[in-house]
């Protein structure tokens, strides 16, 4: 199985503030990789570096065997990203946002988008400004999935989603992964990692530690947070 994500010695700082330090990580094809860690530990910094939003200080990132800096555009064609805060242009209708995301990719994703909207119960006639956080997140899921990417990157995807939608969301991930996709799931919810992930790592103070198994108990999990607080 080939590595879909290869991060080597990634270091990113924000001026004098720590971002991530010497992070190395491999994610293999077909994996659902749980990415845990307290707030400010560096999960989003790692993800945003992978997507080219941040300029890294040192190290290298390869996604689908492409360099994250040189092949930035080609990588984004194959990636479906859902940010933790799902913001869109307020005045747009949901249908326009979904269509716009497909058009920029030069694709006609009408059928897949319709299927996703039906399953997630997305009202495509509403304007973005009329939507709650949960409903905006559903739009974000459709935008991330409609082009059937090879790699999904989800940053705290289930916050704001009701339990039924959370279930449907993970069903969708499993279906795409069964068809050959890979998923990086950044979350605070241990039960999600326990239930759905095949591998996991935890970030603390900018450093990454691989977990032997994604099935860890609450006490072990909370220790990571407590140590951070101390």
């Amino acid at each position: 199985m080939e590595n879909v994500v290869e991060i080597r010695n990634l270091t990113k700082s924000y001026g004098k503030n720590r971002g991530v330090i010497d992070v190395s990580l491999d994610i293999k094809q077909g994996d659902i990789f749980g990415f845990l860690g307290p707030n400010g530990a560096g999960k989003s910094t790692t993800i945003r570096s992978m997507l080219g939003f941040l300029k890294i200080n040192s190290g290298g990132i390869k996604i689908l065997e492409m360099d994250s800096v040189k092949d930035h555009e080609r990588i984004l064609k194959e990636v479906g990203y859902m940010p933790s805060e799902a913001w869109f242009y307020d005045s747009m209708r949901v249908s326009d946002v979904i269509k716009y995301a497909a058009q920029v990719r030069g694709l006609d994703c009408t059928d897949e988008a319709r299927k996703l909207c039906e399953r997630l119960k997305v009202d495509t006639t509403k304007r973005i400004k009329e939507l709650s956080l949960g409903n905006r997140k559903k739009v974000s899921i459709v935008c991330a999935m409609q082009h059937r990417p090879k790699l999904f990157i989800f940053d705290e995807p289930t916050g704001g989603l009701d339990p039924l939608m959370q279930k449907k969301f993970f069903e969708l991930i499993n279906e795409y992964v069964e068809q050959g996709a890979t998923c990086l799931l950044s979350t605070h919810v241990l039960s999600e990692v326990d239930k759905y992930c095949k591998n996991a790592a935890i970030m603390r103070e900018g450093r990454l530690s691989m977990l032997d198994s994604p099935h860890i108990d609450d006490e072990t999990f909370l220790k990571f947070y407590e140590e951070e607080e101390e």
Partner: protein
Amino acid sequence: MKAVLKRELLNNMKNLLIWSLSVGILGLICILLYQSMQGDMKEMADAFSNMGAFSDAFGMSTLSIATLKGYFATEVGTVHGLGSAMFAAIIAITIISKEEDSHTGEFLFSLPLSRSKILVCKALCIAVMLVVFTVICTVFYIAGFIMLDEEVPYEQLLTFMGRQLLMNFEISGICFGLSSLAGKNRTGLGLGIALICYCYDLMGRVVPDLKDYLYIGPYSYANAAEIFTDTKAPENSLVLAFVFIIIGVLFAFWNYNRRDLAS
């Protein structure tokens, strides 16, 4: 890229309509008011042309506001000069920074487009907006002349609107560069730049010591009174306009491609 450009145009359409109709209709009303004021204009024109430096500043020493052409240059010229510069500044200073300010950047920048391509779309959007704004206002002003059964001074009017468009490009070029800085709403700064440029020109025409440096400001080559009296624009001011536009746009590309994007 076409989809992004279309989206940018749609996102800014409301602004364009509000500003172009406001400035255009205000200009048209000013032109139409000329007829009702025509009777008193002779005395007013004499008084205004003898106010020394202030007459120079507003061009009333070289043009008589008793004629529609002179009235247009002094009154509508000021309205359009200020209105168009404010519009140019507002759209350009928010067009890049709004993505981070309103948190839409993560959506836009996760789409498979380089930052440079996105900036090209945004720069093109500004250019289209300014051209359409100028065309709409020009139509209103020509309509005003026609409604008063006056001969339209096409050559001077189109030169004036063309120079105003260049002035708008210059201000928007500077603001475009500033918009690439960290994503905060800087509408106040944009408006300030437009007003400072206007005041600089006004002061430069009143204060003799500043006259030699008037060419630095964008209003120096877009002054209605000078254009309607066929005064040649200082060449260095036109060269400087292009220099400012190029620097502003290049800075935006350089800065935006090298920095982190806020979430």
